[in-house]
């Protein structure tokens, strides 16, 4: 299992289906899957660093890079962040999903 601790929040099945429709080869599909993974990851890390007090950034990233899958990272974040960690990360996931679908499907054009 290739796992990062926040994976449980993400279930972008529709996006995978859309990528399957537009990718012209398996290699292209795999590459797009990786680029989407990178995008989601940057957004998640950005979101965490935004909410986590500066003093704990280095400690968190050290823990995370040592064991990216570790469920204990949730406990760490719950202790150090005053807000509902799962809540704001879930919100971010929702935004990412919507934005990605918009990029893939394109914005519907308005006509008069």
């Amino acid at each position, binding site marked *: *299992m290739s796992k990062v601790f926040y994976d449980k929040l993400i279930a972008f099945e529709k996006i995978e289906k859309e990528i399957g429709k*537009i990718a*012209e080869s398996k290699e292209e599909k795999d590459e*797009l899957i990786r680029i989407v993974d990178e995008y989601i990851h940057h957004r998640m*890390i950005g979101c965490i660093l935004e909410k986590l007090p*500066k003093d704990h950034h280095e400690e968190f990233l050290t823990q995370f890079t040592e064991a*990216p899958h570790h*469920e204990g990272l949730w406990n760490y974040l719950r202790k150090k962040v005053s807000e509902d960690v799962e809540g704001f990360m879930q919100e971010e996931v929702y935004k990412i999903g919507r934005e990605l679908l918009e990029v893939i499907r*394109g*914005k519907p054009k308005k006509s008069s």
Partner: protein
Amino acid sequence: MSKTAQPIHSQVLREKLKVKNLILRQEITLKHGHLNNDLLSKALNIDKLRQHSTHLLGAGALAGTFLLAPAHQVHALPAPQDIVQRARTQQAIAPVVSPQKILIDSLKEVLPQKPRPLSRVEEKSLEQIFSDVLKVPSKATLEGEHLNTTYGYIGAEQHLVRYPGDTMASQVGNDKTLWKEGMAPGKGAWGYFAHSKAELTPELVETEKWYAVVQTLYLPDWNTRTRYLRDWYKYRKVMIVNTQNGNAVVASIADSGPAAWTGKHFGGSPEVMMHLGGPRYKKGAVVVFFVDDPENKVPLGPIEYNKIQLPEWAFHQV
């Protein structure tokens, strides 16, 4: 009024996402200049992080850090034959012995509540249980190869196009329940099953019908041993066991996926999913092991192990 949006071309999407990633990365780096550059770079490299987590989980490493409590404890398991025997004994007081119930009860003793990579001990126990109850030789590690996880969530896949010009009608005929999923827009990871309809053998028909999807794209050595692994995994037989109801299928690997960000770890053809959980089954926890079948004797499709064995006294009483 709004017009339907035009689908994006794959190259345009690729470029757009790459630019977005670059901008995001720059923003994070600029905003958090107080952080050590190397540490931040490491934390943003998702490919390397996934590889690292695969290694840790595969090695059964529980806690590598000083602050984090162990993610999961591998509990000591009783011997697999004891687990099956206990389930059989409990069943013996009931008038009818159901192998499926024995399997479900045995799985409950071995498996953790939520899917996660299993330890070697857990996998060995399961191999023994499957051999005892399902009578199919299966292994978590076969010829040195092991999936990133053997216990995870399976999701419903579409039919795969078998040859150029293949249609749903020629694949599933009038069976409307199997039409629902439709046909995947692209080919499977190994391309067409045959170059033409004429070259499609009955074996290949079965291969597509009972196909499985595994995450070869995340195998840690996929990039270094690509050619060997691609051949090794092509149409490799796996046994998929629904851990909730004990339904089991032998399938052949014919595609790679799903993406890690789908919340799933395996995929099954419409026929596989139908047998594992019925027409509404879209996602569920399963164990996936390789079938040890060097002589190609194990057929693809459902494993019919649940023939009820009536005890001898039942016949006398009738």
